[in-house]
């Protein structure tokens, strides 16, 4: 399984990288961690004529704490983020979710930006970006723009990035700002892509009712999905069991999951329902008792 031939560029500055992208556009692919791209190239499912290796752009590897979240340079290794005390403090949900991203050797090379740009709808980091309503920064020759999570993921493995644009930064609001937060994933084996994964976030009002709710799912559509209908049914309520049940049911009805060798559409729908149910219960428990939710299911 050897890849098709390609030209290899290894720019040492961001400007060089952007210039290369401007020149080659559609013919080029950006090589960051390579943990998703190189398998595709080895299977010859991806055959870029030019590979732009951005791993020398040290300026793109950083984790900065902001008031309401974290800013990751796109080239931040997943392993670095996993080990970062900043991440553990500001975004325990991210720290939890990272343990499900492949295995240690994958996380050594895989990057925060790379996972977001690859946009696999069953991946953990895109799910978190959507759930936490984050955004990315993208640069090209002559410009920079911010793209909100909701606009960024367009379709299966497809983002709003233009071929000449490079993802440079991922901004993730802190999960620690929520009263209740849970991340649950069901995968066939540890480290596999999720069959279905869920994030539930709850903010309580002073009177203990639900002020804000976010329910997001991975693996149930061409992109990670927020479920506004399910969220709406919780807001302003006491988050009783019947409400939670209704939200889970609405989430199951709102999605049109894919069918593949690992799970049919119907099964994924039922898993989504179960994960939202359990994710809500965990988030409510955390919000009311202060005890953190456990991470994954198996």
């Amino acid at each position, binding site marked *: *399984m*050897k*890849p*098709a*031939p*390609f*030209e*290899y560029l*290894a720019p040492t500055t961001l400007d060089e990288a952007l210039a290369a992208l401007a020149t080659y556009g559609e013919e080029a692919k950006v*090589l960051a961690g*390579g*943990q998703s791209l*190189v*398998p595709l190239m*080895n*299977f010859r499912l991806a055959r870029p004529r030019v*590979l732009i*290796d951005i*791993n020398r752009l040290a300026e793109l590897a950083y984790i900065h704490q902001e008031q309401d979240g974290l800013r990751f340079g796109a080239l931040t290794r997943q*392993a670095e983020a996993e080990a970062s005390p900043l991440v553990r403090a500001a975004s325990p949900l991210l720290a939890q979710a990272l343990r499900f991203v*492949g*295995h*240690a*050797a*994958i996380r*050594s*090379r895989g990057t925060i930006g790379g996972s977001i740009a690859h946009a696999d709808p069953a991946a953990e980091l895109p799910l978190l970006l959507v759930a936490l309503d984050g955004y990315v920064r993208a640069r090209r020759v002559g410009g920079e723009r911010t793209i909100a999570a909701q606009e960024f993921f367009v379709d299966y493995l497809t983002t709003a990035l233009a071929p000449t644009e490079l993802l440079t930064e991922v901004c993730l609001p802190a999960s620690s700002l929520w009263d209740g937060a849970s991340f649950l994933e069901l995968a066939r*084996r*540890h*480290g596999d892509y999720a069959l279905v994964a869920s994030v539930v976030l709850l903010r309580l009002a002073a009177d203990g009712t639900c002020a804000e709710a976010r329910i997001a799912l991975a693996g149930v559509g061409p992109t990670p999905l927020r479920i506004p209908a399910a969220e709406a049914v919780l807001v302003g309520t006491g988050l009783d069991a019947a409400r939670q049940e209704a939200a889970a049911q609405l989430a199951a009805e709102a999605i049109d999951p894919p069918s593949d060798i690992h799970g049919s559409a119907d099964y994924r729908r039922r898993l989504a329902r179960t994960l939202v149910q359990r994710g809500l219960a965990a988030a409510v428990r955390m919000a009311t008792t202060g005890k953190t939710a456990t991470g994954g299911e198996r």
Partner: protein
Amino acid sequence: MSALHDIALVVNGQSYQGRVEPRVSLADFLRDTLGLTGTHVGCEHGVCGACTVLLDGRPVRSCLLFAVQAQGAEVLTVEGLAQNGTLHPLQEAFRRHHALQCGFCTPGLLMTLVAFIRDHPVASDAEIREALAGNLCRCTGYQNIVEAVRAVLAAAADQAGGMPHGQR
């Protein structure tokens, strides 16, 4: 054929130079160009872990890295574990605990575990198994590998002065 690139890197403490086509993987470069065939290729898509080496101290899939990407890097392969004919404690433990049968997945496992025990001086069986989950073995059923790791951690803890080996 695309242009060849010059690379220089250090493998197992020794400097090497080469000229490679960009599409040659680090695994193939180590094996075919440098003759270090201890690193094995099992799947070429990053799942089986047989090709795992240490790159600048971190475990990586050498089948998912192009050799050109290792320019200036320090690589450690299984051939670099034993020192002056003395086996690394992990290798010794693997032998004592029958943690290998056909041996094909073994180098990748050893390199994964070298990093793991360095970073996790205390680990439960569940944590050890999670650390192993990125390396496929079709012969051993993993149990003896877990025992070998447990033994190495316990021995290191004893040497470090009685830090209790945690089992949760």
